[in-house]
């Protein structure tokens, strides 16, 4: 009797094998950020992601500043999944009173089976607005001077259940820079990854290498370590970084802390998803 059932199951398997399907990779990262940088994860369609992020002062500021915790910087952000492949986001951070907005579009999806694709590819286009009062209001100031832009490709691959890596070639364009020697266009190559240590916890690393130029001479490469802890609809990301700011124009192009000198900022990202539009 058992043999006959096995035959029937073989028949079923044969039937299923005839139809080859595409198996899309999912859960490359726990959430929409690696640490500071975008990950290839989007908010799902109809899902609103709220990010509350804090970066404290430098750990080496000592006990008087409670190891940096007396100086809190924050960014409040919302991201919405317009379609399964397009996310639109806005944010506001206190550093330079920055408003930022971005679009993140998924162009390729890693998959196996009928359609074989080794990587996931996304494009991020962003804009940051410096919201501070003009330093010299008496002279003629242009709104365009407040703006900077980000163009970034995210090239990611989930190598295994545990290991995902992401490359992030990026360019930050500042409309206005302080001196003629400063670069309007800052090119950098970012790399990030995660290692899953338990179903709910991953360790993330992220690095932005500034291509040689005056920016690279004056500033540090951003290096950040994160620990993602997932609890249902929340992800807590505990962060150690030499970058204080959370928008790309600042953390890629103007990181001034040095890990070697102990200029490390502790912080966290708290992400929470809200299903706005229910799936049918």
């Amino acid at each position, binding site marked *: 009797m058992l043999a*006959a059932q096995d035959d*029937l*199951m073989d028949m*079923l398997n044969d*039937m299923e094998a005839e139809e080859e399907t595409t198996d899309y990779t*999912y*859960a490359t990262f726990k959430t929409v950020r690696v640490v500071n940088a975008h990950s290839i994860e989007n908010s799902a369609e109809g*899902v609103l992601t709220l990010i509350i992020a804090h970066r404290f002062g430098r750990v080496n500021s000592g006990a008087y500043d409670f190891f940096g915790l007396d100086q809190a910087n924050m960014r409040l952000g919302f991201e919405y999944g317009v379609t399964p492949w397009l996310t639109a986001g806005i944010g506001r951070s206190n550093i330079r009173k920055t408003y930022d907005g971005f679009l993140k579009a998924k162009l390729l999806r890693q998959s196996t089976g009928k359609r074989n694709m080794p990587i996931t590819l996304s494009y991020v286009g962003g804009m940051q607005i410096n919201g501070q009062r003009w330093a010299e209001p008496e002279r003629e100031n242009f709104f365009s001077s407040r703006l900077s832009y980000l163009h970034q490709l995210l090239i990611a691959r989930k190598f295994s259940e545990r290991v995902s890596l992401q490359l992030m070639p990026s360019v930050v364009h500042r409309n206005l820079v302080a001196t003629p020697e400063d670069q309007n266009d800052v090119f950098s190559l970012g790399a990030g990854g995660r290692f899953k240590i338990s179903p*709910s916890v991953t360790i993330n690393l992220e690095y932005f290498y500034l291509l040689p130029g005056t920016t690279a001479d004056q500033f540090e490469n951003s290096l950040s370590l994160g620990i993602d802890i997932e609890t249902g609809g929340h992800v807590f990301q505990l962060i150690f970084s030499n970058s204080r700011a959370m928008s790309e124009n600042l953390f890629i192009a103007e990181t001034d802390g040095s890990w070697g000198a102990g200029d490390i900022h502790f912080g966290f990202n708290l992400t929470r998803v809200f*299903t706005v539009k229910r799936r049918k």
Partner: protein
Amino acid sequence: MKNLLFSLLACTCLAMFFPSSLLAQKYFTRSGHIQFYSHTPIEDIQADNHQVSSILNAQTGEIVFSLLMKSFQFEKALMQEHFNEKYVESHTYPKSTFTGKILKADGLDLERNGSYPVSVTGQLTLHGVTREVTTEGLFEVKDGTAKATATFVVKPADFDIAIPSVVRDNIAKEIEVRVNMNYEPM
């Protein structure tokens, strides 16, 4: 008269060796529907899989099911991701299967319209663990197609599915599984 007798004999012989049920003894579907439902005071969670394959051997009562765990659709995208990534671990155990037998099938005739209560028992494999499951079901036969429905309860703990403590109150200890298949002759 002799000819007629011979014909009758021939027919009887044919019927003995090739009973009509043998010609259409197997029934199948590739678009069966299995739903599961978890109820807790905090929230109700439901997921639907409309791509369940099944073959039924009407003569022997043997019945097999197979489905891909990834094909369960949840209302919330993140729940679906966590279900696959953390709970049922679809990357390691992509399929769930059931091989069983219809018991108390007396009178079940898939060529005669009617309602037939049945009892099914067999081996359910889920998350790499195999357990025996017995359930009551109902066959409703209409013009050569058979609609089969059944409801039974699965305990995640029986299948070594670990639910993290933070969502333990959101996911029921006993999950109701609802089966709804429309079989056609193979």
